[in-house]
């Protein structure tokens, strides 16, 4: 295309978006499309590989396709150690989600009325919890819990006075839950605060003008408006805990191993169709929870008429 025709074309066709009219324009457009295609393939290939090979009827080699079979799912679900790990994972994730949501929401509400200086300290702490790599949080938590255990157990021993069944604190469920809750409280706090800052204050004022008590105002005005963020925080906390490996591996104890720990241990001897089946089931759990949350948030958004962006990151429309 010569400069002359380009100049003639310009006033005739007003374009809403930028068209690159030089010689390589078409090539660049094709390049963009190809690149996007490759990236999406790159992102989904591993997930497809896990799911597809979990249905492999092979007995020896994972990648040697021997026909469709559900036997690895049967084997996974009937395996005692998988069942135990699954139970641990679900229990820990559920308790963590409840606690983190409660703490995070309370903190977000409390921060509204807190003095400016204290809020700065809080923001700085949130910043630290973001900038410190997860593994450092994990090992610091391990140190704290071990210290706590070493201090608490002699006290417990003297309290019992040698009689009855000895009760001792060790690393296990409670340490995993506590560490997960620390991580997720910041997450819920950020989500609920974002929602709070976008909230219509006039509704709360109107509620007070109509002689509603603070509790009633919270229940009928504030809470329904915060609900999408709270639900999103709950679900994200659940999936974080359900999928977490790094923190859990540091603070877990005997008998409290979760599914990610089990899978990691198994892959030391190489990937098997069994681990693929467990992984595929974990993917289904996580994605179901997030999609359910997404639908809920979208519906709430429509009902409230706000329609705002979903905190999970999926667009609501």
């Amino acid at each position: 295309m010569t400069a002359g025709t380009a100049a003639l074309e310009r006033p005739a066709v007003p374009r809403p978006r930028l068209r690159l009219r030089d010689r390589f324009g078409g090539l660049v457009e094709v390049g963009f499309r190809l690149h996007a295609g490759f990236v999406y393939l790159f992102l989904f290939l591993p997930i497809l590989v896990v799911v597809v090979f979990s249905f492999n009827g092979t007995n020896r080699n994972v990648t040697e396709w021997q026909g469709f079979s559900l036997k690895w799912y049967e084997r996974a679900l009937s395996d005692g150690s998988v069942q135990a790990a699954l139970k641990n994972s679900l229990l820990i994730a559920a308790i963590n989600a409840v606690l983190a949501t409660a703490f995070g929401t309370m903190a977000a509400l409390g921060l509204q009325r807190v003095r400016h200086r204290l809020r700065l300290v809080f923001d700085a702490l949130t910043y630290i919890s973001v900038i410190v790599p997860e593994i450092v949080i994990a090992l610091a938590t391990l140190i704290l819990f071990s210290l706590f255990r070493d201090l608490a157990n002699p006290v417990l021993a003297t309290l019992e006075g040698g009689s009855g069944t000895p009760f001792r604190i060790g690393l296990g469920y409670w340490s995993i839950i506590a560490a997960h809750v620390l991580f997720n409280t910041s997450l819920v706090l950020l989500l609920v605060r974002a929602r709070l800052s976008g909230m219509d204050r006039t509704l709360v004022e109107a509620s007070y003008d109509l002689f509603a008590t603070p509790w009633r105002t919270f229940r009928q005005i504030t809470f329904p408006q915060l609900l999408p963020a709270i639900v999103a925080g709950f679900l994200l906390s659940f999936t974080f805990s359900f999928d977490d490996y790094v923190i859990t591996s540091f603070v877990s104890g005997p008998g409290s191993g979760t599914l990610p720990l089990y899978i990691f241990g198994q892959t030391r001897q190489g990937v098997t169709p069994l681990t693929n089946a467990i992984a595929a089931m974990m993917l289904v759990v996580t994605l179901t929870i997030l999609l359910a949350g997404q639908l809920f948030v979208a519906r709430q958004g429509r009902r409230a008429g706000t329609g705002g962006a979903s905190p999970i990151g999926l667009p609501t429309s």
Partner: protein
Amino acid sequence: MLPASFWYLFLLVVPLALVVVYSFGERGTLGGYTPAFTLDNYSTVFERPAPFLTSLWMSIAGTILCMLVAFPLAYFIASRAGRRKGLLIVLLVIPFWTSFLIRTIAWLLILGPRGVSGFLSDTTGLDIRLLGTPLAILIGIVYNYLPLMIFPLYVTLERLDRTLLEASKDLGAGRWATFRQVTLPIIWPGLITGSILVFIPLMGEYVVPAILGLGRVFLIGNVLQLDFLSSRDWPAGSAKAVVLIAIMLVSVSFYVWATNRGRRTRDVSVL
């Protein structure tokens, strides 16, 4: 409010303070920690800096690779996708919210001797093994952290006023000049946010090298894991953790300072 502040205090401030205290201690006879005051743990860190250097160059390389892959895609979604924009974003989010561990393990199969490595060996006749090499780790890293780079870039590109690009073109600027003088200054904040979001977890990365590095490539995360869970030398591990936090604070602060400074001068040149 109160429960959360206690939570922060007891599970963030106190543990990090304990790490600093432990870093001056000595290893107990059965592992763990014995109170002492020694700088030996720190001198060991500086005598054997290899894992730190590996982590540093891999994090920088990983961040740059993420930028190079993420930018054209974010640009494509923001300016070319039209009505499919929502769908394309959802498709980015789905893999991101699935288990990190599972996504990494999947690459064991793909890069393994019956996957890409096998294919390359067969076609070239050479014995190519990708697993256990830094390349495999870089692939795993880019795969896992790419969305963290795409999202902030997409958000800034979305806000990009297209009339500015038209204006630049009408004023006779070429593609490169428009990119450098109009697009880049506008997407700068997204680029910085994205690279910090990617760089921070990369410096502490432990799962990807443990799985795709087959235990042969040591990053700080792996050394920390060994110190704390295998050899149980907690003071040595604590010293490394303190050095890691110091590196993070210095590098991130420097990065923010340097990029802001660069931005100011660029603003002037645009004017």
